[in-house]
């Protein structure tokens, strides 16, 4: 079977924003989409590098987001700060295991999955390997799909802090941990956005 036609070799570029396929401007000058004027790239520049950088930042920021408390709840008997895992445990012990499960998935499972997935893709890109390309693409789609669901925990903290304000009886306040967690989610999302999944199929021809 002959190789399929590739736009790279055919001198065609697809616009990332509106999808219009245009002819590449010769002489190495930058090309712009004739419809939406977005700069056209064959592949996202320094895709793997950017993705890796953001991934590393996300992993580093993940540590304080778990160690620092994310919320402070005060009642009549005093107040208590809790981290993400402590919150999960308190929900679980309190009998609210569906909520505990949801928060665990959103705050621990999903970021971990993203770290591993993006990390794997970047590593294989650097290794220029052809291993499991279809599966890697599927993995990338998964990452894109679940990416923003991690913000669930941030929304939970925000809503709780806004609603649980009873004068004298109880109040809830966010703490620094949730900011770091938000940064982690944003970083992984940017990392995923920076990663051009077409590189998986390039056999190392383009970086």
């Amino acid at each position, binding site marked *: 079977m002959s190789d399929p036609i590739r736009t790279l070799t055919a001198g065609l570029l697809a616009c990332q924003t509106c999808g219009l396929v245009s002819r590449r401007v010769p002489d190495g000058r930058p090309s712009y989409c004739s419809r939406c004027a977005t700069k056209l790239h064959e592949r996202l520049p*320094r895709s793997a590098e950017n993705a890796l*950088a953001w991934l590393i930042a996300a992993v580093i920021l993940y540590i304080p987001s778990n160690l620092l408390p994310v919320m402070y709840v005060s009642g009549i008997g005093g107040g208590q700060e809790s981290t993400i895992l402590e919150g999960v445990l308190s929900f679980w012990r309190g009998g609210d295991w569906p909520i505990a499960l949801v928060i665990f998935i959103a705050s621990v499972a999903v970021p971990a999955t993203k770290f591993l997935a993006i990390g794997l893709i970047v590593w294989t890109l650097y290794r220029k390997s052809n291993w499991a390309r279809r599966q890697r693409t599927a993995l990338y789609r998964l990452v894109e799909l679940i990416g923003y669901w991690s913000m669930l925990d941030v929304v939970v903290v925000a809503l709780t802090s806004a609603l649980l304000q009873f004068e004298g009886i109880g109040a809830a306040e966010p703490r620094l941990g949730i900011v770091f967690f938000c940064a982690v989610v944003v970083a992984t999302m940017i990392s995923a956005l920076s990663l051009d999944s077409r590189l998986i199929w390039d056999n190392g021809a383009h970086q």
Partner: protein
Amino acid sequence: MPSLIWLVPAAAVVIGLSLVVNAWVTAGPRITIGFQTAQGLEVGKTLVKHRNVTIGQVTAISLSKDGNHVLVSAELLKSARSLLTSDAQFWVVRPRVGIGWASGLETLLSGSYIAVEAGDAATKRTEFVGVENPPPLTHGVLGKSVLLHAADVGSLALGAPVYFRHFEVGHVIDRKIDAGGNGARVVLFIDAPYDVLVTRATRFWNAGGIDLALRADGFKLRTQSLASVLAGGLAFDTAPNAQDVGPVASGAEFTLFDDQEAAMAPPAGDPRYVRMRFERSLRGLSVGAPVEFVGVNIGQVFAVDLDYDEAAKSFPVIVTARIYPRRMGKAYLVLEQNGTATNEEKTARLVEQLVARGLRAQPRTGNLLTGQLYIALDFISGARPVRFAANSQTLEIPTVPGGTQELQQKLAAVVAKIDRLPINEIGRQLHADLVDLDQTIGDFRTQVLPAGTASMQSLRTTLDRVNDTLADDASWRERVDQTLDEARRTLQSLRSLTDYLDRHPEAVLRGRHPSQPPVGEKSAPVASGPQ
């Protein structure tokens, strides 16, 4: 050149490191406190507070190695490092209730917490042993502490108030039994600025409860405050006529008196012991009963003993009394001035003179209700002279029986007299007289009465008859009437006869003239001669 995108993870690293460094730098001391129980303490929740400001939190609770107590680990703020002196005290604030006070009730809602009170020591440490009760004294409070010696603590609880003229100026901070077991020590703390009121002339007394006195001038009831009635309390004041009113340092020692009278009384001076021997029973005399000299209380009974007199086969009572000659007041000063009361020999001689003048010890009733006795040293007139041994260590004062005993003797005499009355004789005589009387009455009834009755009856009959006789319709009265009528007529006619004769004296001879109406008939008045 690597792209600028690597600043992003670099920034993340920097932020992470800064957090770590910040946490490490601001970390405060970690301490371990040993408590008897971890009741009310929760890891990660219980706070450590100083003057109600949170300075730390409990991080771990575990049992000690020997399982006898609990080790509580806490992490404190850096600023709390200055509190961790060697004598700092930690205690758990829980609800505590005593008589007249309650503390820590807010912890029912907010949960117990550990409170800390710093000390004065220069060294610091991180391992402490907690105290089970909050210390009574707050560190740094101005004032003075005072140590009192007392026979017993009475009803003084920790925290009992101390009053000066009914102002609360301090409280009890400690009380313990003396080392030798004879008495107690109470430590008070008098707050500034009232601590200057405590001078060398200050007297302390137990003012708790209710002070009741039934005296000659009436019933007196004294209390300090409701709190002191319930929880006990102390009061103090300056002794009257005191010369030395210099200030005292913290920790000065005083004696605790039982009540205000005892505290304010002039100092008693050295005691002397006297012995008295009573022949009769002294029921009602108890140890501690007062001894009075001419009405002034100069001491108390120290011991009451029974002795056996072989010769008289009786059990006299030996009473030992402790007297304070100084309580005689001015008399003592006067005696001291002319040198008769200064030492034992002179005192003995003085007492000898007094005894020669009639000084005796006599038991008297102090309280009619309870029958309590007291010993009165008084001059008894007509007392039998006794020999006085002035050289014995314990002066022996001669005695006379008590006033009640005389009363008893008199009563006994009266009873004896009553006893001697010939009651039997009188009874017998009375009996005989009664028998006689009985007989007389019987005679009277059987003999005199019927006769009397009969006489009465005949008398009545007589009276009836008299009544009849004198009645209006009695026949003899009629006859009498008739007779009287006839008599009257007769007399009338006689009179007219005499009248006629008076006018016609010749009628005696001649008879009546036929013109003349017959004698006795009324004639028409005729003017006639003198009649």
